[in-house]
């Protein structure tokens, strides 16, 4: 074999092998051959968990929707109407809701600590689509019974601007501070909300939102684990 003559060919072969390795070609080829597309989609997006595209396709085939149902996913993922969207029903209003990863009547959110007593409520806009109000606040120090919360947002100059103050009280035998703050009072878009407390003597802080969808108020058309199809 003339190495000099075949050198370009060898480079091509090695480049191919590198690309095979980089893209996991053999494994991909076996998967494409052995697993059908529908199953691969389900493996990727989950059946009832994560984006739950498997469940969406399953109920779409089973219930044969006559409008595009509203999909509410309690895990923050990209919108997943694409999985079952029917463009013939663009303008039809739907009274069918698909709830994915339904957490129950309340939604718990652990807050991100920025400094000692300053916290970020991440994805506030997302939570505003699931809930109308912040119902409770929880801190893991039962000795604190009075709490002052200042709500902040970032202004156009990226500086914190105070938008609301609340004073909360809880009895010694109560676990949560009652907040009852309507989210509609805040001008929420992609901006996050922040809170400052007058206390920092605790290690855990949670915000509890009231779920907008209480399934006992709807007719359940289908259920698998915590994924539901409900009708008004």
């Amino acid at each position, binding site marked *: 074999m003339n190495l000099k003559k075949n050198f*370009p060919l060898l480079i091509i072969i090695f480049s191919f092998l590198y690309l095979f390795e980089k893209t996991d070609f053999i494994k991909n080829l076996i998967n494409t051959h052995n697993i059908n*597309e529908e199953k691969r989609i389900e493996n990727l997006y989950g059946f009832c968990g994560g984006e739950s595209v498997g469940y969406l396709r399953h109920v779409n085939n089973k219930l044969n929707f006559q409008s595009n149902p509203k999909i509410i996913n309690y895990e923050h993922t990209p919108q997943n109407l694409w999985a079952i969207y*029917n463009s013939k029903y663009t303008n039809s209003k739907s009274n069918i809701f698909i709830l994915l990863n339904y957490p129950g009547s309340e939604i718990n959110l652990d807050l991100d600590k920025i400094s000692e007593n300053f916290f970020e409520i991440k994805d506030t806009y997302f939570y505003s689509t699931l809930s109308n109000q912040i119902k409770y606040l929880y801190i893991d120090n039962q000795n604190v019974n009075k709490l002052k919360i200042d709500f902040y947002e970032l202004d156009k100059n990226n500086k914190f601007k105070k938008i609301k103050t609340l004073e909360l009280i809880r009895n010694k035998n109560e676990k949560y501070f009652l907040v009852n703050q309507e989210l509609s009072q805040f001008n929420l878009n992609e901006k996050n909300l922040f809170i400052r407390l007058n206390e920092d003597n605790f290690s855990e802080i949670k915000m509890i939102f009231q779920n907008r969808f209480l399934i006992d108020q709807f007719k359940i058309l289908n259920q698998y684990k915590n994924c539901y199809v409900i009708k008004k």
Partner: protein
Amino acid sequence: MIEIIDIFLLFIIFLLFVSGPLSIYNLDNGNLKIEGKLNLYFNLLINLNILLYLSILPLKLSEYIYIIYALLIFLLIKNYLLNLKKNNIKSSFSYLLIFFAMFFVLAIDISNKLNLSWDSKWFWFIKSLYFFQDNTYEQLSDYTYNDFHPHLGSYLWAFFRKISLNQYEYFGRLFYLFIYLGSLMLVANSFFKKNIYNSIIFILLIILNYKYYYFSGLQEVILFSFLIIISKLVFDYINNRNFLYLIFITLALNLILWTKSEGIAFFFITLICINFIKKIDINHRIKFNLIMLFFLILKITIFKIFDIKLNNQPYYLDYILSLNFDLIIFKILNISAYLFYYSLTNIIFIIFPLIILFKLKKIFNNEFDKFNFNFYFLNILFIFSAYLFRDMEIVYSLKTTIDRIVFASSGFYLLYIINYLKSLSFKN
């Protein structure tokens, strides 16, 4: 196995799509002598422009898709099969084999990863469903998010998905892969005279540049590929001053205009840069500018007819006037930081400014050097102004979009880099 056969059949369909109306063996088009293989790209631009305007007519995709393919098969027979003896098919075979091998490896990668990006789920895929489910452009106007971006990429997604046997979603996206590989091959072919060495360059370019993310339904890969083709046409125009190249540049820019909102920036940047070419024939200049103006007015008119907003992005005069000094500085610092960071993750965007620095003194001696420098300067200016004047939280906006803008625009500089490397290798 059927899925793998389908991928193979799709490749043949894509080839068919670029094999007509011009034959690659017909080197003389009247008085215009053009490189044979470039006809494949001319065919791509002609056919995509035809599809673009077909997509706007009140026709369902299933009503005409097979007619188009019947026409392409007719052209295939006319251009190639009837002159089989005259055509040197063998010379193209090794090219085709390598091209298919790369296509197959990456198509299998796409078939497994499958994941659609955030924007694809919001806009691009749902828009493609309108065409796939036999709705028309007029009905697409009913979709709430239609205003944000034009529809060409989504339409192509639906078109090539529809023609496949199994009609899986990702089959439509394989056409993006085909254009991407085609554009890289165009650049690679300009390096050496021997095909085998160019094939090495082609594979290396893929290894350095390919990421699945680009094929997750995002439209930037189409912009990237069209910009590569445009840079080659500009290069050929500068060297040959043949008006035919300018015509195809306008066709490619028209496609860019209908692919993404940002396309308008590349449309104007190229327009300005072409007008800066020295000693350009006055007839060419006038005709080129008129065709560009025609395409722009045509798009605006179509948008008006279908009641689509020309700009639904958050750019408002009130906001621009309200910008204060602190905010401008804050934004500029953030844009610079993120642009620098994301440039480091894109090999083309790192190398190009370095070459410019090396050649800074000679940059205005060569028209193609000057063109690329002007394009880069205006591109950077566009990136800064796009974020500066956008009424949106700047860090969020930068984090989610600037990598894609950098990738899309980097396509234009690839040929320049290849030419520079070529000049170095010849010196040595």
